């Protein structure tokens, strides 16, 4: 073979002539696009089925879905940090809850 490997130009020509009959398939682009779409469809289907599976397991366990309870009010939380709705109660004096109501004393007028 009469090529001079130190000559860039002749190396390029030699490679072109040697590999000149190497051609890819005509529908290579369509093949690649189709392969990409097929892979993407499969991924989307996988993701959807994963979501359905997680929801299917989670709902009976009460982790999510309509059966789950709303979050409870935390009594230890500072009122200014609270984000949920709270019915504000008037402050109660200490010990007020222990007072047992007594009947009001009946005042009788004593005739002088």
């Amino acid at each position, binding site marked *: *073979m009469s*090529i001079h*490997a130190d000559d860039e130009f002749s*190396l390029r020509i030699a*490679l072109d002539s*040697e*590999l000149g009959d190497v051609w*890819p398939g005509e529908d290579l682009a369509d093949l*690649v*696009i189709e392969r990409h779409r097929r892979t993407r469809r499969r991924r989307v289907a996988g993701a959807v089925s994963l979501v359905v599976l997680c929801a299917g397991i989670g709902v009976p366990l009460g982790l999510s879905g309509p059966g789950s309870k709303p979050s409870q009010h935390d009594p230890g939380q500072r009122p200014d940090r609270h984000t949920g709705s709270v019915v504000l109660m008037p402050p109660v004096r200490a010990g007020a809850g222990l007072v047992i109501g007594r009947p009001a004393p009946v005042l009788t007028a004593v005739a002088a």
Partner: protein
Amino acid sequence: MRGIRGARASRDAEFTEFVQAASPSLLRAALVLLDSREDAEDAVQVTLLRTYRRWEQAKQAPQAYARAVLVNACRERWRHRRRHPEISQDLDELANVVSFAEAVDRRHVLVRVLRQLPGIQREVLVCRYLLDATVAETAAALDIAEGTVKSAASRGLDQLRQLLYDEEKRDRRVHPR
């Protein structure tokens, strides 16, 4: 909906145009970098698939993007072969059976000699002389310094010249004129 379809059609048209222009040189480069036509075709398909997936980013300079992806795809294949020598053995046996492919391959003296070069030299020569990349583009594609590209190209050409000389000498011994 029509807008999405229109955008997809224009993206597909751009990509198809790029594939028609670039795929012959990509396949030839893969053929030199890898040992078989099947592997080369697979590597080109993987390259184009990755390029299409990132087309919005790749379309600024699709040739450079595909070049870098091709080199990586070929390196992945080498590593895979090294980890699974049994596959290489199977393919070698297959190559013995497929004598026609071998016969066709025998014509490619230069390709065969290029395949004997060490990895980095082969990659540099392929990028420079088959994919028509500049020194800077080759350095970017192979993720090496420009100085390394120049030295690898110089050493690769020296070794290629020596290997071709040896090949010619062997050829004369087998077929004396």
